[in-house]
C-alpha cells in the first residue's frame, strides 16, 4: 500500500504580482506527524488554504491517498466541503468555532459530511434518520471524551476557556474522520500548562494512527512532536528533514535569525 497520504507537487499561488507560494513540494506519510515551520508571512497558512480549497492554487497538484487503496485522488478544483469529504480536516490559527452553538453541537456539525438525513428525513423522522442521529450523538460524545471536554458538552462554545476552545476545534476536525488532520498553530496563545496538555493530546491522537500536518511557532513543541519538519521562507521550501537535521541546518538558522553581520 502507498505510504504517502498527502503529496503536494509544485504548488504555486499568486496574489496579483505577489507569489505567496513558490513551487512547493511536500508529502506526509501515513501515521506521521509533520510540522511546517517558517517565519511570519512565509506562506504557511496560505499553503493550508490552498490545499483545503479556500484558494484555488495558480499551479501545482495536491493528491490525497484514498483510504485502503493504492490510488490517490486529486484535490485540485474541489470546494472546501468536498476536500473535507475526501478526508482533509483543519483547525484555524484564530479560533473559528460556531460560537452560538454548544460544544456538543460543534462536534456534531463535524459529522455532517459523513451522514445524509435531509429535509424530508427531518420532517418525517423515519427510522434511518433516528438511527443516524443516535450514531452522530454517540460518536460526538466519544470524541469529546477523547479530547477531555466531556464536562462542557452543553456549554456554548464561546464560554469555554481558551485552551478548551482549541481542543474543541481539534475535536470538530476529528469528527469528520480525516485521513490527514491539519492543525494551524494549535498552541498559539496558550499558557505553558495548556501547551503541555495539547502536546499530550496530539501524541495520543497520533498514537491511534492519525496522520497530522501542523503549522507551529512553538519550537519546543515542534521538536518534540514531529517526525519530519518542512521549513518555508518567502513561499519557498528552504529545508526538510528530521528535527535534529533542521536544528543544525544553516539555511534555517539564517531564515529565523537573519544573516550574521560579521560573516
Amino acid at each position, binding site marked *: 500500500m502507498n505510504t504517502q497520504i498527502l503529496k503536494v507537487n509544485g504548488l504555486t499561488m499568486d496574489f496579483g504580482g505577489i507569489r505567496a507560494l513558490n513551487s512547493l513540494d511536500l508529502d506526509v506519510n501515513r501515521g506521521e506527524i509533520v510540522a511546517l515551520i517558517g517565519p511570519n508571512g512565509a506562506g504557511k497558512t496560505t499553503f493550508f488554504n490552498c490545499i483545503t480549497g479556500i484558494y484555488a492554487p495558480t499551479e501545482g497538484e495536491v493528491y490525497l491517498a484514498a483510504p485502503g487503496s493504492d490510488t490517490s485522488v486529486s484535490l485540485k478544483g474541489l470546494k472546501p466541503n468536498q476536500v473535507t469529504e475526501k478526508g482533509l*480536516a483543519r483547525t484555524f490559527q484564530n479560533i473559528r468555532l460556531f460560537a452560538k452553538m454548544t460544544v456538543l453541537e460543534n462536534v456534531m456539525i463535524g459529522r455532517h459530511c459523513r451522514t445524509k438525513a435531509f429535509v424530508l428525513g427531518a420532517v418525517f423522522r423515519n427510522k434511518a434518520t433516528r438511527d443516524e442521529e443516535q450514531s452522530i450523538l454517540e460518536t460526538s460524545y466519544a470524541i469529546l471524551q477523547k479530547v477531555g471536554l466531556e464536562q462542557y458538552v452543553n456549554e456554548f462554545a464561546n464560554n469555554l476557556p481558551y485552551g478548551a476552545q482549541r481542543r474543541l476545534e481539534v475535536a470538530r476536525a476529528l469528527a469528520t474522520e480525516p485521513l490527514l488532520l491539519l492543525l494551524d498553530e494549535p498552541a498559539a496563545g496558550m499558557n505553558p500548562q495548556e501547551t503541555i496538555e495539547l502536546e499530550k493530546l496530539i501524541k495520543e491522537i497520533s498514537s491511534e494512527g492519525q496522520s497530522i500536518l501542523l503549522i507551529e511557532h512553538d519550537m519546543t513543541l515542534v521538536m518534540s512532536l514531529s517526525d519530519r519538519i518542512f521549513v518555508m521562507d518567502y513561499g519557498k521550501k528552504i529545508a526538510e528533514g528530521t528535527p535534529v537535521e533542521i536544528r543544525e541546518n544553516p539555511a534555517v538558522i539564517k531564515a529565523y535569525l537573519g544573516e550574521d553581520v560579521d560573516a
Partner: protein
Amino acid sequence: MDYFIELLFSGLTRGSIYALIALGYTMVYGIIGLINFAHGEIYMIGAFTAFIVATVLSIYGFPLLAIIVIAGVAAAVWSSAYGYTIEKIAYKPLRHAPRLSPLISAIGMSIFLQNYVLLAQTSDFLPFPALIPEFEFMEPVAHIVGSSDLVILITTTIVMLILTYIIKFTRVGKAMRATAQDRTMAMLVGINVNQIISATFIIGSALAAIGGLLIASHIGQINFYIGFIAGIKAFTAAVLGGIGSIPGAVLGSLVLGLTESFATGYVSSDYEDVFAFSLLVLILIFKPSGLLGKAETKKV
C-alpha cells in the same frame, strides 16, 4: 369585552399568517444576508396552487379534509420548487456580487412573478373555496372566534414547533445554523453550503405556501397582487422582531398582527396600514436591531 377578545383573536390569526411568511424572510436573511423580495410572490403562488388543486378536487367531490391536506401539500411542494429555482436563477450567480445586486434581482423576480401570474390567471379576484367548515363545538363562541381562526392558530403553532425542532435538533438545522454563523468554516467542516441554502429556500417557501392556503381560505378570495402587500407586512414583522432571528420573526408578526387588529377595531380600518408602518418606523428609530435582534458590531 367580547369585542376585545374578538380583536385579540383576529390579531393573533393575522399575526400567525404574517409569521409563516416572515420566517422565510428571516431564515434567508440569516443565512445569505439577502432580503428575498420575491418571497411574497411565493406565498401568492402557494395560494394559487391551493386554489387550483382545491377547485379540481371539489369538482370530483373529495371530502373537505382530504382537499385541505392535498391542496396544502401541493401548494407547499410547488412553492418550494419555485423558491428553489428562484434562488438558483436569481441569487446564486450573484452570491459574491455587491449586496445591492441580488436585492435588485429579488425585486425583479418579484415583479416578474406577479406579472406572470397576472397573465396566466387574471387580474380579477378569484373566489377561493371555504375549505375550513364551521365547527359545531365552536357555535357558542362563533360570534367572537371563527373556526378558521382556530384552525389557523393551531396549524401555525404546529408548523412552528416542527420548524423549531428542525432548526434546533436535526442535522439539516445544525448545518443551517452553522452556515449562518460562518459560511467558510461551515464548508471546511464538510457542509455543502449550496445544498443548505437551497434547503433554507425550500423550507421558507413551504411555510409561505401553507400561509397562502390558510389566509386564502380565511378571506375567501385571491388575486395576483396579494403577495405584494402580505410580503411587505411580513417583511415589516421580520424587521420588527429583529431580522435573522427566528423567534424574533414570530414575535414581530404577532405584535404587528395585534397592532393592526386593534387599530382597525378601535380606530378605523382605514388606518390599519398607517399603524403597522408607524410601528416599524418607531422600532427602527428606537431599536434599529429589532425586538430580539442583537446589535451588530462591525469588525474593522
